């Protein structure tokens, strides 16, 4: 399997604070990889770098064969149609209805007619168990529904890579299951994904491989079974024995 994502010697500082010293990771095509670590460890920063929302201070971020560190904002636009980002809070446009939010990427990047867009939006909402929410404003939805709309919007263009930023944080068991189901469904379709999460049950249910980010670098990596059963940094982190 070919590498879809490669992060090499990634370093990032914010002011005087060094968040990443030397992060290296690789994700193969079709894999679902979990990235875990303490709060403030810089998991989301890595995720944001994978779509060019952050630039590394040093190192390389290669996604679908392109080094994002060398690309300008305009050059990132074609890549962002193939790589989707699911924001922690959904990041839905609050001045638009749910249907308009979903139609946004279709209007920007496809030549579909209004009728076709409407059809696709309705089909996607039905698939995500969001029937009847077309005309609802995002603020009127529950947190779980907002996350599902965010996921639906991010994946409506059938991306090759999906980046999830804490997709199940703050959700009830039903909505957590729903999100897990969606991630597994994307995986079945061969979509490569990275999941930043603190939710270990979800990570072990959907991930093929997991990385632990600690002290600005990858401290441990392996399959969920390996990492959860072995005694080591990962088990210490999961059991709350270290930050």
């Amino acid at each position, binding site marked *: 399997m070919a590498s879809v994502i490669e992060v090499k010697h990634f370093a990032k500082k914010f002011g005087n604070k060094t968040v990443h010293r030397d992060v290296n990771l690789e994700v193969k095509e079709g894999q679902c990889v979990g990235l875990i670590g303490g709060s403030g460890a810089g998991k989301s920063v890595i995720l944001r770098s994978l779509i060019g929302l952050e630039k590394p201070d040093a190192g390389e971020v290669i996604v679908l064969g392109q080094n994002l560190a060398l690309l300008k904002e305009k050059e990132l*636009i074609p890549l962002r149609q193939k790589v989707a980002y699911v*924001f*922690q809070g959904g990041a839905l446009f609050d001045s638009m209805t749910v249907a308009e939010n979903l139609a946004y*990427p279709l209007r920007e*990047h496809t030549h579909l007619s209004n009728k076709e867009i409407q059809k696709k939006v309705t089909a996607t909402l039905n698939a995500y168990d969001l029937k009847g929410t077309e005309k609802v404003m995002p603020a009127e939805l529950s947190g779980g529904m907002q996350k599902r709309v965010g996921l639906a919007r991010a994946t409506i263009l059938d991306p090759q890579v999906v980046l999830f930023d804490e997709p199940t944080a703050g959700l009830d068991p039903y909505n957590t299951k729903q999100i897990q189901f969606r991630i597994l469904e994307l995986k079945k379709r061969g979509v490569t994904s990275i999941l930043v999460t603190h939710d270990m049950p979800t990570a072990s249910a959907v991930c093929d491989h997991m990385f632990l980010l600690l002290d600005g670098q990858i401290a441990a990596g392996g399959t969920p079974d390996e990492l959860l059963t072995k005694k080591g940094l990962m088990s210490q982190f999961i059991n709350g024995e270290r930050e």
Partner: protein
Amino acid sequence: MIQNFIEDFGTQVNTFLRFLGGIFFLTRDFCLDIRTRPFYPILVIEQMYQIGIRSLSLVCATALSTGMVMALQFGFGLERFGGKYYVPKVVALSLIRELGPVFTSLMLAGRIGAGITAEIGSMNVSQQIDAIRALGTSPIKKIVIPRVLACLIVLPMLTVIANFVGIAGSLIIGVTELGLDPYFYYQKVIYTITITDFVVGVAKTLFFAFFISVVGCYYGLRTQGGTQGVGIATTKSVVTSSILIVISDFFLTKLFWMVEKWLAS
């Protein structure tokens, strides 16, 4: 103590230079992106409605009040020297060349500048700006260009309306309080104001509109720290654009006088 002063001064200079740099880069991005596809005319029209129609009552109230107050002040002031009949000339010239454009712009800096910053700032802290970028679109094209263009189109129009309303207000006071003949008042205004006076006043508002919208967008896009950050950014935006309007007004007035002289010679 001296060290603290130097550190504070250094921080202020640093902040000012960052602001100048930020405005420069935002202006550059605006100038580059406005020429390339995709274009979003619907967004410009929406913003024109938000900025123009919704500000109309505020602008008219300000202009009416300004015209009436000026007519009263000049009327009673000049009456002592027998100069009551100069009121139409003085008020019309002041309104058209100076007070109409400046007061309208200051009102819009408060209403529109704050609105732009608060809206973009809220979008920024709720990651909606990041979402625009992550979905393969440009915040400059989607957010900045429609607001700047709408301001550039609408502010001169509002100023023209404010000029007429202000003069109408002064006419009402001239007739009712100063006992001037309405036809005499109208004739004096028409003979005093030239096309140049009118154009100079309106031309200034293009600069003011640019300051209000670009400063509003700049602070909105740089907002950090949740709702408190939005409040701070909004205050900074209104204060900065108001100061820019007042200071640049002097230089623009001077510049336009020089141009007028040069054209006349």
